């Protein structure tokens, strides 16, 4: 593994941000967008312990010092990592980034292209479809505490992908985006922009991985997802960065009338990983499912913040986040369901389940409701406990050792969410990743 020199390309140095902007395709609005991001980043303070939106988080160890923009990887490195990026045998399209540089431009079938489907790197899309980007890119604030991090992402916006599926086009096979970090001390800012027009259907799987397990890195990702009326979006996002990564993901999803949105977040990697997932329901009949699973080991901190906003009535949202905790790890789940005054006949649910497999792990749970309409069905539930002693006894009585029995029960606990992944190949890849993580701990 190579290490970046400390002098050039430090992300906290304004020159780095300026140089990077100059090197790119220059639309004035895009340069302004990035400049605004930089200004906001410098104006906002770092979160502190007493910030309500960072409650329970270890804010003291947050640091953006000594991270650098990634250099272009060598051909050998590129070939090696591309070879490791085929998680689904026949994806609708595959895009790969290493240290923020696009190393495999997606090729989609002629049939999809003919239907007007666009799957491109952010840089290519800037050249080809500036109007689309101008309309949808970073239109929502980070409302869950990560504003400073989203601002930095905006300042360094360069890598990522754009997926646009036009009206009525239905694609079952998932699109795949793989982001790698390779160099020690690298900072990456991958962006995902997904637009499904009226009655369109798409699935996107994202793998965020590091080439070396001990490598230090900073990853600040953001996703903007738009489901038009009657559209269906399914997203599977795997956070498997290295153990020395600080990662932040800020996702904003909007669902129009009768749209169906399903997202599954699987967390394995990072020293600390924060997910901020906001879903806005803007039309009646929408159906939103949010799932999360994690296995936290060692001293990992998984910080999950979710917000389900019901602006329109007669819609449904359901959330289930399950965490397995080992070692001295910590998970934080903070969820909020907001029902606007006129969003009558809303059905909104939220469940957080934590399985403590170690006496030193800590599970913090803050399931919240803010309801301003009266004709609603809303509930939340949170449980934290150990494996069911009867189930454990059953396995032990059959000669299965304690550690294996615990692992089997934990796998069963996670399976409820993994079974929601829309592609079996992808689900097995992640199931195996979780299994390996158990064995390592």
């Amino acid at each position, binding site marked *: 593994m190579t290490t970046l020199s400390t002098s050039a390309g430090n992300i906290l140095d304004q020159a780095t941000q300026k140089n990077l902007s100059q090197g790119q395709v220059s639309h004035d609005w895009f340069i302004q967008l990035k400049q605004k991001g930089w200004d906001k980043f410098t104006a906002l303070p770092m979160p502190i312990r*007493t*910030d*309500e939106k960072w*409650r*329970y988080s270890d804010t003291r160890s947050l640091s953006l010092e000594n991270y650098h923009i990634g250099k272009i990887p060598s051909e050998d490195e590129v070939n090696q990592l591309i070879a490791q990026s085929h998680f689904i045998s026949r994806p609708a399209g595959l895009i790969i980034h290493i240290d923020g540089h696009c190393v495999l431009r997606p090729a989609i079938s002629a049939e999809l292209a003919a239907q007007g489907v666009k799957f491109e790197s952010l840089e290519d899309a800037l050249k080809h479809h500036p109007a689309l980007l101008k309309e949808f890119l970073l239109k929502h604030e980070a409302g869950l505490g990560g504003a400073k991090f989203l601002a930095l992402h905006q300042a360094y916006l360069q890598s990522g992908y754009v997926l646009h599926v036009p009206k009525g086009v239905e694609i079952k096979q998932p699109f795949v985006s793989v982001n790698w970090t390779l160099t020690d001390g690298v900072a990456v800012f991958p962006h995902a922009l997904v637009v499904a027009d009226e009655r369109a259907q798409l699935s996107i799987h994202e793998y965020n991985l590091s080439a070396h397990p001990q490598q230090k890195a900073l990853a600040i990702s953001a996703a903007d997802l738009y489901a038009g009326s009657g559209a269906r979006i399914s997203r599977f996002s795997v956070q498997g960065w290295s153990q020395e990564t600080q990662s932040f993901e800020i996702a904003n999803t909007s669902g129009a009338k009768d749209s169906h949105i399903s997202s599954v977040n699987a967390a394995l990697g990072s020293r600390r990983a924060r997910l901020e997932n906001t879903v806005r329901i803007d039309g009646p009949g929408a159906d939103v499912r949010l799932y999360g699973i994690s296995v936290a080991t060692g001293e990992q901190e998984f910080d999950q913040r979710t917000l389900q906003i019901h602006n329109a009535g007669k819609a449904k949202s359901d959330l289930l986040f399950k965490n397995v905790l080992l070692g001295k790890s910590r998970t934080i789940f903070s969820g909020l369901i907001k029902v606007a*005054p006129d969003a*009558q006949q809303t059905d909104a649910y939220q469940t957080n389940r*934590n399985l*403590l497999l170690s*006496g*030193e*792990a*800590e*599970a*913090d*749970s*803050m*399931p*919240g*409701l*803010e*309801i*301003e*309409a*009266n*004709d*609603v*069905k*809303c*509930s*939340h*539930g*949170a*449980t*934290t*406990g*150990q494996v069911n002693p009867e189930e454990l006894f059953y396995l032990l009585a059959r000669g299965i050792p304690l550690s294996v029995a615990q692992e089997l029960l934990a796998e069963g606990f996670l399976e409820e969410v993994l079974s929601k992944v829309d592609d079996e190949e992808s689900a097995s890849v992640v199931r195996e990743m979780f299994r390996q993580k158990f064995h390592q701990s």
Partner: protein
Amino acid sequence: MSQFEDTQAQRDAIDVDRTKGDFKYEENYAFDAGIGLSEKVVNYIADVKSEESWIREFRLKALKTFTDMPMPTHWATEDLKNIHFDKIRYYLSKGQKVSRTWEEVPDDVKETFERLGIPEAERKFLAGVEAQFDSEAVYSRMKDEMSKLGVIFCGPTEGLRDHPEIFRKWFGKVIPIGDNKFSALNSAVFSGGSFIYVPKGVKVAQPLQAYFRINAENFGQFERTLIIADEGSEITYMEGCTAPKFETATLHSAVVELVALKGAKIQYITVQNWSANVFNLVTKRGVAEEDAEVRWIDCNIGSRLTMKYPGVVLRGKRARGEVLSIALANDGQHQDTGAKMIHAADETTSNIIAKSISVGTGRSTYRGLVHMPKTLRNCKNNTECDALLINEHSRTDTYPAISVRGQKNFVQHEASVSKVSAEQIFYMMQRGLSEGEAMSLAVNGFVNDLVKEFPMEYSVELKRLIELQMEGSVG
């Protein structure tokens, strides 16, 4: 807010009750501490009460803490900013208390008493008509019994003066001065409240009530209560009453500390029905030692804003804590209530059941804290909070925070939000009830399992009170 609205709001907050009863304070500074908060006021209170120097120092330290601490508006409602601390009277000596005659009590209050079935003798007291309620006659027999058992029941001044060996050890220990801004305020200016000591093994059969000691300053603005139940003893304490309590003071900030020593049981029942101009910001916490039990039964119906999260620190093995809470928020009210359970020993259990009803533009909020640190084993918590929304613009929020570590600990939390189902109302109306009657029956059904936990006379009054509150909420 514009200059005009601001002063208007202040005037409303201060004047609202004067217009009803048409009474006013006599401005006589020989007997009261004047308006506003300063060291002078705190010293004045300490002088009037002839307190020992350590209490005076405690008060002055608390005043500084209060001044230094910021308003907790980063999580709490902005409405707190409407409290004008410099316009409040912090102490009035007895002779300067508001006095009024029964004739001055507004008719609607009298009618409420009638409908609630409040005993004739207590009505006048509840309406603030002092010195006419013959408490001595009614309760003196009970008082004799208590003192035979060795139960001490007095106010904070007498408690700290006459029994320092008992009360000083725990005073300000369960809720330290700096716990929050309002506990600091109370610590600076407290007067009135109950100090109770129940000796080892004594089980007090009948509930002790705050209006037991009628001639003392029971319903003070800044009451301070400390109850110590010695090993194996049991006591039930009831505070407040279901009748609307008329108040000229717009800020109430009490501190209640409970200490249940080994094997003791304390049950503390509150029915809060302040008038709708009152900020009610109360800190309540109990400590439960080995095998002890602290149980809070808390019912909030009145006030403009109530912020109250009764807590139990489970300090000894197998200690048990419980909070049962009912909140009803009507137009313009915000009931911000909840519970805290701090597990600090093995095999401790806690239970929280909270039910809230939001009517009209009322807003009810549940905030909870459950904490189990890593050294603990076999602790359990169960939390249930249910909210009922009556009208289109009623609002409810739930903000629990649960932190769990340790071995074989188990925590479950469930919350639901619902409205009264149209089928239920239809069913009852079909049998001849009006829509309003049907609604109040449904609401009473919603809180029924909690109301049952109240002593009988309270639960009857409570049901009638809920009926009253539900009147006019539909149709």
